[in-house]
C-alpha cells in the first residue's frame, strides 16, 4: 500500500489498527480456498460477504496469497455486477427489471425509489443505509413486480408502496443504531 493511502479504506472512519484487524478476517477464507483451483471468485464473494464491499487493501492481500496480479483481480471484479469497490448501504435494494416485472410496471417503482432516496442506480445514500441497484429477474415472476431488500422479497410492489417500505427499513436501521449505543 502506498503512503498516501495509509488511512484505512473501510468505512470505520480511521481506527488505528483497522487495516490489520480487517485483513485477519480473510485468513479463514484463504485457508479454505487457497489450495483449490479457480479460487478467486469464491474468495472475492466471501470477501464481499465480510466487508460488504471489496476494500483496496483486500485486493492486495488476495493478490499476494493467491499469486494473481492485482490487475487480473481488478478485471474480474469489474466484470461481475455483484462486486462493489465502494462501501454499500446496510440495505441493498434491488429492483427486478426482468420481463414480467417490466411489463407490470417495475420502471415506475424504480422511479419512485430514485426520487425518494435521492440517489441513482448504483449509488448509496449518505447515511449508508440504502444502496439502490437493479436486477435482471429474481425468478419470482409470478409475484411481479418484485424488489429485493437484502434477502427479503417484496411482491406486487406499487410505486405508492415505496414510502412505507423504505420507512420500515429506516426504522430497523435506527433501532439497530440505538441498540448499539
Amino acid at each position, binding site marked *: 500500500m502506498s503512503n498516501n493511502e495509509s488511512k484505512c479504506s473501510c468505512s470505520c472512519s480511521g481506527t488505528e489498527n483497522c487495516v490489520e484487524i480487517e485483513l485477519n478476517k480473510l485468513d479463514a477464507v484463504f485457508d479454505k480456498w487457497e489450495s483449490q*483451483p*479457480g*479460487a*478467486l*471468485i*469464491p474468495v*472475492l*464473494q466471501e470477501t464481499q460477504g465480510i466487508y460488504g464491499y471489496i476494500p483496496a487493501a483486500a485486493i492486495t492481500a488476495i493478490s499476494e496469497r493467491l499469486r494473481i496480479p492485482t490487475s487480473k483481480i481488478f*478485471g*474480474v471484479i469489474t*466484470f*461481475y*455486477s*455483484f*462486486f462493489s469497490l465502494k462501501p454499500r448501504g446496510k440495505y441493498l435494494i434491488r429492483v427486478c*427489471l*426482468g*420481463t*414480467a416485472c*417490466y*411489463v*407490470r410496471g417495475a420502471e*415506475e417503482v424504480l422511479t419512485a425509489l430514485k426520487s425518494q432516496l435521492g440517489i441513482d442506480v448504483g449509488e448509496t445514500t449518505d447515511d449508508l443505509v440504502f444502496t439502490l441497484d437493479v*436486477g*435482471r*429477474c*429474481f*425468478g*419470482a*415472476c*409470478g*409475484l*411481479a413486480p*418484485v424488489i429485493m431488500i437484502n*434477502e427479503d*422479497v*417484496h*411482491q406486487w410492489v406499487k*410505486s*405508492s408502496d415505496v414510502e412505507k417500505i423504505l420507512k420500515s427499513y429506516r426504522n430497523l436501521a435506527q433501532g439497530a443504531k440505538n441498540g448499539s449505543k
Partner: protein
Amino acid sequence: MDDLLINERIKTPDDLKKIRETICASAEFNKEKVFVCAGGGCIASGSMKVKDALISELQKKGLADKVAVVETGCLGPCAVGPVIVIGKDGTFYQNVSADDATAIVHDHLIGGKVVEKLIHVADDVKQQNVDEIPFFKNQKKVVLNNCGKINPNKISDYIAVGGYSALSKVLTSMSSDETIAEVGSSGLRGRGGAGFPTGTKWTFAQKSEGDVKYILCNADEGDPGAFMDRSILEGDPHSVVEGMAVGAFAIGCKKGFVYVRAEYPLAVDRLQNAINQARECGLLGKNILGTEFEFDLEIRMGSGAFVCGEETALMASIEGKRGEPRPRPPFPAQKGLWDKPTVLNNVETYSNIPRIISNGAPWFASIGTAKSKGTKIFALAGAVEISGLVEVPVGTPLRKVIYDIGGGVPNGKAYKAAQIGGPSGGCIPADHLDVALDYESLNELGAIMGSGGLIVMDETSCMVDVARFFLEFVQDESCGKCVPCREGTHQMLQIINRICEGKGEMADIDTLQKMAVTIKNASLCGLGQTASNPVLSTLRHFRDEYEEHIRDKKCRAAVCKSLIVFEITDKCIGCGLCKKACPVSAICGSTKTRHSINTDMCTRCGLCYSTCKFDAIIKY
C-alpha cells in the same frame, strides 16, 4: 444427519432397497400429511408462517403424532400463494394466512368440513380438489412430479419415492455405453434452450481421451422471466444430484460442478444440503453403493453476469476468470473446464435422467412429438390469470398453456403476444396461438423454445418497447469481447430509442433488419448470435406498430412516453387533485369546473393519471 430415518451409510444396492422399505413402513412416513408449498414464491408470500401456525395448532389439538406438516417444492400457482394441499383428500387451499390454521385444523382435519373461503374458484365454480382444478389437471408432471409431494430437505423422502434407484440400476446392471444408449434412445434434448440431443453430447465426452473429465450443471438461469431451474433445485435437488451422478458414470468422470446464480440463495442452500446428505449416506464420494464408482459435486456461485450462461463463459467463470466466451471448436467435450473433456447440461435436463433410467427410454419417448420427446416446464407470467410454473408434454399448443392452464388474460383485456425464450427468443402473435410448443415449430415463427420463460402480454404492452427492453438487456449484458455484439447492439438500441421517441425514419426499419442479420452472423457466442431475435420477431409480426411510431408518431399501447397524450375528459368534476399533483404545473382549471392539460408543458410523468379518482384522465 438430522434425517432420523437413515442412520447409517448406504453401502450396497440391497441396503438402498432395505432402507427404502424401512422408511416406507415407518410411522413418520405414514402420518396423515399437510403439504405446505415452500417454493421461493410462496415463502415470499409468507408460507413459513402458515407452516408454523399449522404445527402449533396441531400440537394444541394433540394431533402432532398423527398429522405431519410437510414443506414441499413449488406447487406451481405462485400468484395465489401461499398454497397448501391436504394430503388425505387432495383439497387445495390458496391465499392461506397463518390465521387460517385454526380453521384448517379444527374444521377440516378434525371436522372433515372444507374451509370454503380458501378454495379456488374459476368462472364462479368452486374447485376443491387438486385433480379438478384446470391449472393442475391440464399439466403432465414428470420433472416436477416430486415437487409438492416430498420435503426437498430430506433425503429419506426422496429415497422413499424411488430416489437413487436409477443410480443403483446403472451402477449394478448397465455399462456406460448402455447408459448413454438409453439416454440417446429416449430422445431427450437439452432443456437449456438449444435442444441438442443429450445422448450425443455424452457420447462425445465419453469418447474424448483424458484421465480427468468434468461434468457441469448450468444453473445460471439468467433469462428474465424464467424460474424453472430455480424451482427444481428448490423442490427436488436430489434429482439433479442423481442425474449428474448417472452422467458422470456414463462419461467416466469423478468430479462435477453446479454453477448457480447468486440471485438464488434458497436454491443454493437446498442443493448444498442435498449434496451434504448424499455424501453422508455414501451416495457421493468413493465406492458408491459398493462399486468402484467415485463421484463428488461442488457448487460454484455466479456473480451477476448473464453471459455466464453461455457454456464457454461459464467454464471461464468456474476457473476464476472474467466470464468471457471463447470460439468453438474445440468444443467442451474435447477441451472444456481446465482444458479437460467436459459435459455441460442444464438443471431440467439432469432432472429428467433418473426418470428415464428408472422408467425406460420407450416410456419417455412416448411423451411429446416425433422430434421432441418428454415434457417441458414453462414459467408462465405476465398478463395471465394464474401465473406460475407449468409442465406439459413438448408440442402442447400455446393456447392450451395460456387459456386452459393459465386461465387466460385477466381484466377483460385482449391477448397481444407471448414472449418466449427470453432475450434470445421472440414474440408469438394472436394468429399463431395454436402453435405447438416444440423446438421446430417455434423456430419457424422466429421464436425459440429457450429455457422456458413464457411472458404473456396484453394490449397495454407496446411491441416496439418490448424489443427495446430486450435490446437494452443484451446491450447491458454483452461482455464486450467481440465487436458485432458490443457495438452492434448499442447502435440498434440507439435507433430503437429514437423510434420510441417519435424521431424515427422509415429507413430505420431496413437498417435495423440489416444490422440484426450482421450481428447474428458475426457474433462469437450465443448471446450475440441471438441478440437481435426480439427485434426481428417483433418486426416480422408487429411491423405496423413500428410504422405507426415512425409515421403517425403514435404508440397504440400508450407506453412510449414521448408519444403519449394525456387528456382530461368531461368526467372531470374539478376536484383539483391532478392540478396539485402535477410537478410542472401543466394543469389549469378552477374548482368544480373541468380542468385541462397544457400538452406543451406536460412531461408525461403520468402522476395526474394515477391520482385521478374519477377515471377522468385518459392517455392515448
